[in-house]
């Protein structure tokens, strides 16, 4: 956590509110993410963590407040400014989101071809390097549909890293994977963290992997930040909702059995 001291934050959100169709999902979030830091955003289903990720990468406009990435307010940036910001971000989507009509290699080459003036032979070498880093050497000519779920995620990591981004985002990197494959993905994230020391934002609900990779955790609960701090601090938090999440305690759905029965009998007879 030494990095977060005096340095300028690479992402900062203030008063961030997001809503759709009149329903507000995020209620005024404040946080900062610094260079070289791995931040895990935890939260249950419907806590707003996916919306938060979509907002951070500019796919969702905030209804008020601001998100600054490297000082650029992405809610108010022009298309060109936004494109410049986006070229410095890498995003690995939950299902990989590889372009189905292209091979794995072409998918990874795509940002390089579109945004750089590199020779195609250079691009080919870079594609192989990126694939090697995620443990998919030799898969460049496969179609995304021929890959397993875990391999798709790895290929998506490779594509996210193609332009050597300054911030990497991962959406549920271990969701839907068996424990062994999920552990492999965690390892991969840890090795990327060591190799690049770039900022990484990981959205997940998997506690085990969160403990393993996080420098800092932000726990979202019903659209607000319930905890934000170093992994150990959050682990030992006394906040009731944080404890409930970390200790896997279900929401109590019925307060009183008699009250509950009344739902069925009210207004009858």
């Amino acid at each position, binding site marked *: 956590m030494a990095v977060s001291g005096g340095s300028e934050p690479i992402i900062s959100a203030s008063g961030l509110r997001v809503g759709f169709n009149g329903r507000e999902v995020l209620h005024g979030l404040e946080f900062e993410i610094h260079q070289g830091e791995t931040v895990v955003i935890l939260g249950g289903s419907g806590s707003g963590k996916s919306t938060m990720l*979509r907002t951070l*990468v*500019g*796919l969702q406009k905030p209804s008020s407040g601001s998100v600054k990435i490297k000082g650029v307010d992405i809610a108010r940036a022009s298309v060109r400014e*936004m*494109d*410049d910001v*986006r*070229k410095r*971000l890498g*995003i690995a*989507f*939950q*299902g990989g*989101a*590889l*372009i*189905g*009509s292209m091979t794995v290699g072409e998918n990874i080459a*795509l*940002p390089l*071809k*579109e*945004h750089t003036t590199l020779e195609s032979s250079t691009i080919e070498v870079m594609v192989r390097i990126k694939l090697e880093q995620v443990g998919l050497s030799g898969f460049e000519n496969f179609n995304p549909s021929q890959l397993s779920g875990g391999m798709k995620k790895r290929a998506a990591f490779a*594509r996210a890293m193609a332009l050597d981004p300054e911030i990497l985002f991962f959406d549920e990197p271990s969701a839907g994977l068996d424990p062994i494959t999920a552990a492999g993905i965690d390892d991969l994230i840890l090795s990327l963290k060591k190799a690049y020391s770039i900022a990484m934002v990981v959205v997940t609900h998997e506690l085990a992997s969160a403990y393993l990779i996080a420098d800092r955790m932000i726990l979202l609960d019903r659209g607000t930040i319930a905890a934000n701090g170093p992994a150990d601090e959050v682990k030992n938090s006394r906040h009731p909702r944080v404890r409930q999440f970390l200790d896997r305690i279900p929401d109590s759905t019925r307060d009183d059995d008699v009250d509950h029965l009344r739902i069925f009998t009210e207004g009858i007879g």
Partner: protein
Amino acid sequence: MQWVAAVGAATGRSVEYVGGLAEICGRSLRLLILSPLKRGRTFQRAIHEAMAVGVGAIPIVTLITFFVGIIIALQGAYELQRLGATQLVASLVAIAITRELGPLITAIVVIGRSGSAFAAQIGTMRVTEELDALETMALDPVAFLVVPKFVAMAIMLPCLAIWADLMGILGGAFFGVAGAGFTFGGYMQTTRDALLMNDITSGVIKSLVFGMVITAVGCQEGFSTGAGAEEVGRSTTSAVVTSILMVILIDLVFTALFYLARGGA
């Protein structure tokens, strides 16, 4: 009086829909003209699309328009026989096919093959977050997906329509030779005499407009796909139905315009 409000709302939605189509066309044209650097790759993708849209449709268009040529000849001969004017079958087929049925049938085949495919492709990309991925890679989905489709359609649909004209006339010739005592050379000569350049160009112009409409509707339906696989099915169906309706409407307008322009009124 509730139906008045309903009619008004439906009209509003239709106007909004057509506005959306115009916007997607305009945006694609602007992107095509304004980004010279990316034109090379756009044309590469356009060639890829053109193979699927145009070359892939040749067998089915050939078959259908050949048969339609025979059908028109048969129906025409049935009536013309009574007047002892079976000779007019050749010009009847030529005019009906080049001015109307060639472009129209081509458009309907292309709607079924490609308009639906556009909606399904883009819709699936919406559902699997591929559109989001493109956007976050600073790639405009319209530039990446839609512009090549427009280019491919603008070139291939007129070509297919001309091919369909030829096949329809050959179908007519098949009947002419087999059933109406023409020689093949004689049938073709009669056809040539009956046709004006205007007949062919009006069909080709129509098919160009059909191509733009089919692409715009297919892509717009794809982009408006909601979440889930069911929605992809819905947008595909909607792309086909809307495209057919719009193609017929535009055909009506064009045919009326051509008719009036020739002093038919």
